[in-house]
Structure formats: C-alpha cells, structure tokens
C-alpha cells in the first residue's frame, strides 16, 4: 500500500507525451462542456471529471486497444483515454441522432465497443459486477485481454463493490479495479462514509492486492496501473488500485459546492494535474514549449470540430422511439 515502489514501470517519453495529449483533450472537453452548459448553449446534465485527468490518461496509455473499460457517469475522461472520439461523447451529450447511443442513453450510459469502452453506468457500484462478467468472458475465451473498471470512492460502500470484488477473486478473472478516489461522493466527504483511511486496504478482505497511488501524478498512476495490468494479464488475478485525486467542479455541473471548505478546494486546484504535468514534461525535457503548444492547439481543434459537427447534427427522429428495445418487436407492447 506504499505510495510508490521503485520497481514499478516508468512511462517512456512517448507515453508521457501521449498522457499529456490525453489530459489536454480531457480538460478542454470538460471546459467546453462546462462553458456550453453554463451559458445555456447545451441543455444537459453533466458530471465533470475536471481534476481527475491524470488517472484516465494513465489508464488510457496502460490499456491496450483490445482491453476493455467499464466506467461511470463521471467517466468521459476515461472514454477519451480509451480512444472514444470526442465527437461521439458530445453528440451523446447533446442527444443527437449521429451519436453512438443516438442520444437514447446520454453520456452516463455511453458505450463505444469499437474502442473497448463497453459500459458506463449512472448507478453507483453497478459497473463492478458487470466488469467481473467481462473478465469471465476473457478467461473463458482464453484471451490475453484485461478489463479495467473505474469507479469512485463512494462506490466502495455499495454491496455491488463487495459482491464483485469477492467474485472476481474467487473466479480469478483478469479485472483491474480502478478507484478514482476524489474524496467526495456527491456532497459527502469520504471520511464520513468509511472508517478506514484508504480504499486500497479493502482489497485484503477478498485476498486481493490493493495499491494506492497519487492520482494527480500521471507517471505514478502509470506505474501502479501498469504493474497491476501486467500482473493481471499474466494470470495473476484481479487487483485494486486506488488513485487519490480531486473533483474541481463539484458533483454535477452547477453544484455550488457550498459543502466544500474553500481552502480544500484551493489547495486541490493548486495541485491541478494538467499544468503540473506540463511543467514536468518541460522540466524533464520530454517536450519543448512549442511541442506542448502544438498538442494544445490540436486538442482545442478536436474539441471545436466535435462541437461543430454535433451542433449541426440532426436530432433523433421520434419515429425511432421504439427502436432498439428488443432484437425484434413481435408482440411487444407500445
């Protein structure tokens, strides 16, 4: 449960650059959605991931494209990391016919299996048992795929967490449980909802290893996740990785954060992983300023293009309302 151990994998420069690219794209997407909703341009509910980019970027770089992801309503950054196009995300948020779920699901139910993004859920904890089943399918098919499931600190208090962790251990499935501990569940701080200091130590109750890492440090998260994923891929069974991070905009867009101590938020904002990582890449000489500016410009462009395309896209036709309920509608009610 140490914060880092020396033997952990270290990201190569290319991986670091990729993580920064992803973080930038996540951040700009979140900024744009927040702006659009704030101004009334976009009418949608939104659970911002801003502040948690380091975890999702590292996860995106550690996972292979054939690996699978299960995430939550707050998982648009996870999707971006996994390779889901920003356009697909924004289209779903705006409820457009061209979006992956045709707007039927909304972003809290986004799936994009082409990129291995198998499921998002708005029900806290519910993704974990489903990830166990994806892991079981891996084992049964003899694949070398790993399934990662991302969830919050609050989710670890649900019965679903317990049943899934135990079943994952007993069935020995290749699932990496990634807890993005942002220290809050809705408006309640984690210390009010569990008596243990860390989520990681809960893994022991299932005979599963538990790691804890600074979730604002992409390189550290990379190390822990790479260790966990490769262990799991090699048949070592499931692992829990707790990444300690923070949520900058509160629970959902519009949350006034009245419950949030000002200093706590201010301190967290100071540890903003995106500029911090930018500085590190410059300091380490991984990227030059102009390279970083190019990365940022590209990301901004991707987001702009996506918004434009989605804004122009048609709304779903109400004639499609009854589609996609069943494989066929024979004798089904209307």
């Amino acid at each position, binding site marked *: 449960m140490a914060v880092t151990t020396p033997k952990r994998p270290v990201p190569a420069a290319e991986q670091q650059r990729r993580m920064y690219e992803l973080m930038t794209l996540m951040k700009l997407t979140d900024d744009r959605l927040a702006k659009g909703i704030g101004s009334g341009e976009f009418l949608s509910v939104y659970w911002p991931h801003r502040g948690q980019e380091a975890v999702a970027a590292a996860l995106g770089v550690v996972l292979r494209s054939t690996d699978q992801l299960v995430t939550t309503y707050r998982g648009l950054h996870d999707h971006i990391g996994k390779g889901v196009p920003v356009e697909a995300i924004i289209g779903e948020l705006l409820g457009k016919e061209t979006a992956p779920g045709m707007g039927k699901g909304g972003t809290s139910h986004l799936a994009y299996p082409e990129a291995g993004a198998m499921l998002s859920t708005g029900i806290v*904890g519910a993704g974990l048992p489903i990830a166990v089943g994806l892991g079981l399918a891996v084992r049964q098919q003899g694949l070398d795929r790993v399934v990662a499931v991302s969830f919050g600190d609050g989710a670890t208090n649900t019965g679903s967490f317990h049943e899934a962790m135990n079943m994952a251990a007993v069935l020995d499935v290749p699932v990496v449980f990634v807890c993005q501990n942002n220290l809050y*569940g809705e408006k309640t701080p984690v210390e009010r*909802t569990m008596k243990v200091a860390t989520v990681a130590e809960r893994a022991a109750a299932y005979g599963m290893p538990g790691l804890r890492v600074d979730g604002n440090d992409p390189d550290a998260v990379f190390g822990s996740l790479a260790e966990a994923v490769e262990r799991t891929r090699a048949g070592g069974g499931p692992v829990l990785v707790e990444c300690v991070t923070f949520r900058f905009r509160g629970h959902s867009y519009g949350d006034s954060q009245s419950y949030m101590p000002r200093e706590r938020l201010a301190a967290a904002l100071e540890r903003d992983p995106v500029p911090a990582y930018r500085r590190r890449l410059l300091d380490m000489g991984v990227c030059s300023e102009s390279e970083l500016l190019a990365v940022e410009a590209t990301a901004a462009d991707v987001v702009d293009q996506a918004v434009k395309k989605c804004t122009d896209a048609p709304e779903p036709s109400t004639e499609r*309302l009854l589609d996609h309920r069943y494989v066929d509608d024979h004798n089904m009610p209307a």
Partner: protein
Amino acid sequence: MAERNMTMREALNLALEQALARDERVFLLGEDIADASGGGILGVTNGLSTKYGEDRVIDTPISEAAITGAAIGAALDGRRPVAEIMMMDFIGIAMDQIVNHAAKMRYMTAGRTTSPITVRAAVVAGMGTGATHSQSLESWFMGVPGIKVVMPSSPADAKGLLTTAIFDDDPVLFLEPVKLLGARGMVPVEEHAIPFGQANTVRIGTDVTIVTYGWGVPMSQAAAAELEAEGISVEILDLRTLLPLDVPAMLEAVNRTRRAVVVTTSVRFGGPSAEIAATLTENLFDRLVAPVARVGAQFTPIPSAPVLEAAHFPDAERIADAVRRTVGVRAGVGG
C-alpha cells in the same frame, strides 16, 4: 388553519421539520441529506440537520440496502425513521429489504413486530436525466401486500400525506415528483395529516373521469382546460395513494360519468393503470359506455435526448386525445 404559499419542496421540508419537532422518535437517514452535505440533493432536507442535529438527520454511505434495513431495524424498536432513496431508480438495490422485510414483518409475526418506516424517493420523470434516473416504478409496489404507496400532486397534499406517512404504523413508500417540487400552492402552516386511501376530486366534471396522481394531475388539468373549450366536461380524481386505493371514490365518480381515462407517467403496459382500469371495469362493467382508456409512457426505457423523452412520456395533448376518443368526440381532421 393558517395557510402559506409555498413550493412542494418547502412543504415537504416543513412536514419533516414538524415531525422532528413533535416526536423525538422521528429521524431521517440517507445520502447527502445533512447540511454538511448540502441538505439533500434536491434541497428537501435543507436546514434540518442544523436544527435537529446529525443524530437525527443522518448522512449515510451509498448503501441503499443498508439505509432501508437500518430504517427497518430502528422502526422495529419503535423509532419513526424516514429513509431517503435519492431517486426511485435506485430502489432496486433496496427491493429485498422493502419487500421481504418491511412489508411482510407485521404479517409474518402476526403483529408482534412492525416496520413503520417511511421511504422517501424522488421520481425524476421528464427532466432529461435518462433511463436510470427517471423511472416511475410504483406498480412494483402495488402488488406487495404490507406496504403503502403514496404520491402527492400539490404542496398541501405533500405536507399532509408525508405527515401521515411518518406516523403511520405501516411501511410507506412516499414518492416525490421532482417536476412538481418547485410548484407552489397554499399549505396549512400547522401540522396537518391527510388520511391515506382518500382520493381528492381536483376538478368536477360530468362527461368523463380522469383517474391519476402525481405529475399526472397537472398534465390532466391542462388537458381538461383545453377540453372545456371544446365542451367536454372533465372530472379529475387525484388518487394520492395507490395502496390503499380509494376504490369507492373511483367507482362513485366513474359511475356518474360512465367514462374513464387513467393517466400515469409510468409505462402504460404493465404499469399502475392496469390495475386501476381492471378494477373500474370489474365493478362498473354495465355502467361503462366506453372502455376505460389508459394514457401512460410508451413502452421503452426512458430516452435521454429531449425530443425522444418528450415522445416517451404522456402530455396534455395525448391525454386530451384519449379523452376525446373516450367521449366519442373527434376534434378536427384525422384524430
């Protein structure tokens, strides 16, 4: 009784506050309900923990089964717990506790133990929150002997019915239509209780009776106003409680109008309107001049995209159409 104009949110808050003030056995538990956690995600419990303390307004982990179970246990010892399931969509997680424990306890012990809990749950229909945050699942509970099911449509009813729920000696599922939380009305300021099983005639009419509850009531009122202009006189019966069900009031009204339309935001097929329509028909088979019509949501998961969501849920227009068909009047071309 003195009355004040307030929102349903304020009325619910006041009912909780008066119950907490009057009876020290009353306490609340749920996710994010204390003021330290924002006073309830929809503001219904706002201010109560500050006033009554965190021992009586208890923030819990995200554990719907344990929230409900803990309420049951406390009730078993004579407390009056009010548990909050933040949205009704999450009630599946508490289903075992509600159905196998709360609802059956009195019966299984021949009255030796009881479970006078109130489970409050928000019903977020029609607000773009998608398939797992918008469901009206009350029909699940209509078939569960031992529980009571309540859904108010006005601030005054919300306050009076919630008061009754808290002090009722049986488990009560109390549903709060989020669409109406901000709606205003005159509300008795003092504690008042509205008995269960007593439907409310919110509009008097002669041609057809609309039987409904919750968000169905204002939608039906809008339809009725429209229909009045066409010369159709609509009576609206707000059931207030689905269990007990005020069958005498339903029969009295429909016996008069001889036509009925049942309106719910729940799915039409397999939803609560089935039992209501079946009960009406069984009892008034010879009086009815038209089949009991049912207006409900289309049989789909609730889509997130606004245009699809609007097509899924009923609205005043669809209600008016059903009424027109039932009274045999076809408005305009087509129909």
